[in-house]
């Protein structure tokens, strides 16, 4: 069984805390993505599962076994490194065979296992080449073949697509999802690319400064970010966040922001539970912000056309920037024009200005 569990795991390098009190369980056969910016501790967490880093505190379990004191070679995991870490002096065939040799798989059994991995990853005809003679995409597939050849309990992947060009990345993303389905094994996948996380993961675990921020299915994380960090990290363009203060109005509660007041839905107003002025951060995704009749006035700073849609970057009265997503079929506003912004009230997010935590309706 390929479950992986972090139980109150911390990792410190001197005075720097790379991972702080991480508790996270990965289900058997799940595709879990560890997502976060550089230095957030995601790779350290992955390396602790691999046995390449020792946790300072806490327990790591793979299957039913606590592996804190188990050497990397005995953990029954396979890892694909960001640089692929292919042995440059070995041919592709020898690279793929290496884990079998290391684990003393009988010599006569190896060719069939290697051949299957080669077939799975479409590496026919490359077996006698050296890694330096391969393209980035081919190297990536060799690294994957080397990982799958052993049929480990858990696959660990450390940003395996980051060295590929954009087109190949999209293609390989789909191949990895397919591979996960075919192998029916647990995948723990580290990336800083939220598109990869959203498209590939059964669940996403978002980390920042070594602290786990939120775990959940991609859609849930997108629709209900647990805090401001997650809200700003997930989504492209990211969620607009506007600082403001709550004000009571005859119809309910509104948030006063530069350029006007945005009335909140009744459920959110109740959740805020305030009569007075409370500093909050209002969040709205670009697709839920429209240009037309609305309570807020803003100036168009830049219009970015992406072909199928456009991003209209608007400046509020106090200089804060917000982005509205528009279909290309709609008439584009001109740079410098004064516009009114309207908000889809059903998709407003409110965060506490101090704790940055989500205020749930």
């Amino acid at each position, binding site marked *: 069984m390929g479950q992986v569990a972090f139980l109150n795991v911390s990792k410190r390098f001197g005075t720097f805390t790379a991972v702080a009190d991480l508790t996270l369980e990965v289900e058997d056969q799940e595709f879990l993505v560890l997502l976060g910016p550089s230095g957030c501790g995601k790779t350290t967490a992955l390396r602790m599962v691999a046995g390449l880093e020792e946790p300072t505190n806490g327990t790591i379990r793979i299957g039913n076994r606590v592996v804190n004191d188990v050497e990397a070679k005995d953990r029954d*995991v396979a890892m694909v490194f960001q640089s692929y*870490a292919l*042995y440059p*002096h070995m041919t592709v065939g020898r690279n793929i065979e290496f884990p079998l040799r*290391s684990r003393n798989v009988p010599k006569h059994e190896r060719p069939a296992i290697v051949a299957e991995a080669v077939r799975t990853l479409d590496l026919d005809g490359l077996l006698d080449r050296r890694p*330096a003679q391969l393209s980035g995409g081919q190297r990536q597939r060799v690294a994957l073949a080397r990982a799958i050849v*052993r049929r480990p309990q858990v696959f*660990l992947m450390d940003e395996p697509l980051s060295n590929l060009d954009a087109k190949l990345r999209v293609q390989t993303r789909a191949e990895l999802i397919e591979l996960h389905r075919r192998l029916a094994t647990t995948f723990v996948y580290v990336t800083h690319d939220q598109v990869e996380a959203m498209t590939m993961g059964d669940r996403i675990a978002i980390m920042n400064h070594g602290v786990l921020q939120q775990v959940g299915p991609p859609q849930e994380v997108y629709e209900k970010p647990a805090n401001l960090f997650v809200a700003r990290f997930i989504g492209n363009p990211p969620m607009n966040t506007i600082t403001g203060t709550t004000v009571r109005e005859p119809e309910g509660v509104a948030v006063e922001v530069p350029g006007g007041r945005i009335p909140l839905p009744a459920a959110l107003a109740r959740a805020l539970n305030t009569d007075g002025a409370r500093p909050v951060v209002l969040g709205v995704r670009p697709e839920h912000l429209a240009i037309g009749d609305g309570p807020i006035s803003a100036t168009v700073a830049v219009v970015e056309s992406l072909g199928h849609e456009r991003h209209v970057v608007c400046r509020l009265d106090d200089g804060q920037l917000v982005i509205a997503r528009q279909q290309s079929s709609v008439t584009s506003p001109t740079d410098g024009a004064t516009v009114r912004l309207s908000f889809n009230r059903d998709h407003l997010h409110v965060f506490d200005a101090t704790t940055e935590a989500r205020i749930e309706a």
Partner: protein
Amino acid sequence: MSQAIDRLAPGVDAASRPVRRLSSRVREAGLGYLLILPSLLAFVTFEFYPFVRNFYLALYRTPPFPGLPKRWAGLGQVGDILSSGDFRNSLKVTVLFAVLTVPTGVILGLALAVLAHQQLKGIGIYRTIFSSTVATSVAVASVIFVTLFNPQVGLLSYLVGQQDFLQDPTWALPAVSIAFIWQHLGITFILISAGLGAVPDELLEAAHVDGAGAWSRFRNVTLPLLSPTIFFATVVGSITAFQAFGQIDLLTNGGPGDKTNVLVYAAYTEVFQRNNIGRAAVLAIALFVITLVLTIVQLTVLERRVFYGR
């Protein structure tokens, strides 16, 4: 073509351009030669001229007394010397000395470099100690080993029953070899340590996760990636061993008998003790040819097993 030139340099007379370009190239080349002139002069004076002169001297027989004219001996002298028992003995001793020192030196350097590469507290002190012999002169190293091998006060002699290694026909060459290995261990250690530092950690980590134990990681990953460094250390070590002189001069004077009389020391004795410059020249040329052939053999045979990262 001329249209392209016109676009790049409008208004300049097209006919004069190639001449100008040529003269600027000549000027640049002249400056280059001027800059290498000091090195060239030193090289010609101290390396190239003596090297060529050696071939001339090898064809003359020098009388043992100063002031008498040297006599033309031709290639006959070369044949006589190369077929002599003295030469064969010196060649045998030189080869034996290289066999005793080069592999052992490289293996010890590798072992120390691997040990010093561990992430342990205070390992820097050991690195300094291991590389310190590089800063020790031949004279100092020889004094240390004369003392260690001294039958009365030497620790090494004491450990094996007060034997006089340096005067023992069987043990003199191994004893000098130990001193030589010790002296050159520092540079081998530094070379291999640098090579080890260039082995990417990620490859060793990948091998670890792939199930390889410490020995397998060393044999299958570290050693192949270290092969260019080991090869370099072996080639340079072999050349150095064939040119060994200081330790032999200071520890044994080529003795007892001719048991440590390597080619360089034999050539030295011919010049400075017997005033036989012609004979010394033949020995020097023979040493040059042997070292050259050995290096070519190493480059063609051993280098096939070296991985240069392509």
